[in-house]
């Protein structure tokens, strides 16, 4: 069964960076509708700092995630610092000892990220946050399948999850204050989380 070497992390991380950079403006627009419009800017800044600092270094997938998370957490702040910081760093810690990463290993990592997140935020599926993307994506990895199919399922689950946030009413974050008026647009965090998971899957698939 195809596996992905943890040590091949760099190209995956850089793909994630590119995904965020290319969607900087789009994420800003989505956040602007019911938030404050800075989601693209802050994500882009954090991911670009990571790129700048690590582009000439080699690193594993887990280490890359850790460093990216740490930059978001300790240099960017905002909501994304603690949220993605926790997700990435906790996922990295769960995965640092894997030499090879397959479906089960990736699930372990992302599950650790998700449960780390749930220690700091109360949001659950249905609350119009990035949990709506991350949680079904983790679930999609639970079923035994070959890694590539699993990744494709994970992408699909992330996309579906993101799309579902459109009709939801926000319960947490800035847009929660809008109540009913928060319906009708995507959640910014769910959108960026989908980009992250999708580019991560695409990056890994290049090695399968």
């Amino acid at each position, binding site marked *: 069964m195809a596996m992905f070497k943890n040590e091949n992390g760099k190209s995956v991380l850089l793909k994630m960076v590119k995904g965020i950079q290319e969607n900087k403006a789009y994420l800003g627009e989505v956040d602007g509708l*019911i938030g404050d*419009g800075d989601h693209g800017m802050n994500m882009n800044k954090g991911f670009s700092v990571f790129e700048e600092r690590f582009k000439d270094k080699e690193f594993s997938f887990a280490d890359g995630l850790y460093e990216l998370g740490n930059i978001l957490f300790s240099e960017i702040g905002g909501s994304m610092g603690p949220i993605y910081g926790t997700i990435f760093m906790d996922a990295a810690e769960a995965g640092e000892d894997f030499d090879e990463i397959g479906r089960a290993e990736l699930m372990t990592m992302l599950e650790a990220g998700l449960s780390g997140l749930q220690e700091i935020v109360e949001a659950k599926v249905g609350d119009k946050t990035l949990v709506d993307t991350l949680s079904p994506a983790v679930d999609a990895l639970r079923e035994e399948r070959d890694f590539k199919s699993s990744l494709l399922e994970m992408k699909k689950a992330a996309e579906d999850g993101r799309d579902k946030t459109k009709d939801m009413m926000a319960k947490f974050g800035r847009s929660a204050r809008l109540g009913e008026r928060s319906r009708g647009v995507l959640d910014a965090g769910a959108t960026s989380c989908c980009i992250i998971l999708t580019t991560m899957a695409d990056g890994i698939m290049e090695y399968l």
Partner: protein
Amino acid sequence: MQRILNDPDNIVDEMLEGFLKAHGDIVEKTGNKRVVKAKKIKADKVGVATGGGSGHKPAFIGYVGENMCDTAAVGEICSSPTAAAFLDSFREADQGKGVACLYGNYSGDNMNVKMAVKMAKREGITVKTVVANDDVASAPKDQPEKRRGVAGEIFMWKAGGAKAALGGTLDEVIAAAQKAIDQTRSVGIGLTPCTLPAVGHPNFEIKEGTMEVGIGHHGEPGIEVCPLESADQMAKRMVDIVIGDVPFEKGDEVAVLVSGLGATPVMELYVLYNEIEKLIGGRGIKIHRSYVGNYFTSLEMMGATLTVMKLDDELKELVDLPIETMGLTQI
């Protein structure tokens, strides 16, 4: 975008450098470039820390100074400081008597402060918090935990800072700041949107000829978009919302703060205050002290906020204490 900028990604750091140079008599830098500290801090007192996103000048660093906040953690524009910055701000503020962290109710700030408080605890620094939630328009009265903190934070800092300066214990400082914010209500009216330098265009719209009642400090939509009104009508709307939310009663004494959102000419804030004063007075409420100016802004947004705090003897004494900060100097 007609703005005074270099690389927008560096705006916060450059602003901080300039701020420290200009106000070297009031503030000083610390080991963390995103943490600013008051130059003169009374010895042996409870520390008062705050922090928040940038773009709200004078808030937050403009309220660091004698008898107000001891430290402020500085975030990106409209974005919470990091947990690390909050933690460092607690370390700088602590003199062994604990630290009161007085900040605004935003999900980013909540998460970062919570994490920083935990980390501080591991180091033996006791930090207690008060979360400002004075913005009436941001959630119904029965969901105060959802309400944003806006210009009322200034009264919270004033009360907490003064209590600490007067030698209050951590619990007393926390109680004073909590009372201040509990007795304070605010509302804003937005007339134009603002543009984040790194984004380059406004991220929301307020149509010419309309106004957004209840707008947030980051352009968060308000409770109502309605046709642009006269200053007097705006004043009435604001007073009704603010005074209607808390049991302000005839005979009460209050402190009033009218702040511009950034680009509204200050002259117009006085026109607005002129009517606000009449309306509050007309309800038999006495204005003990008033502030009119750009005290808590949102980049170059046009519009204004009204903040009213109900006073008792303790709050009066705390509000009246002299302070020297960039944002407010009171003799």
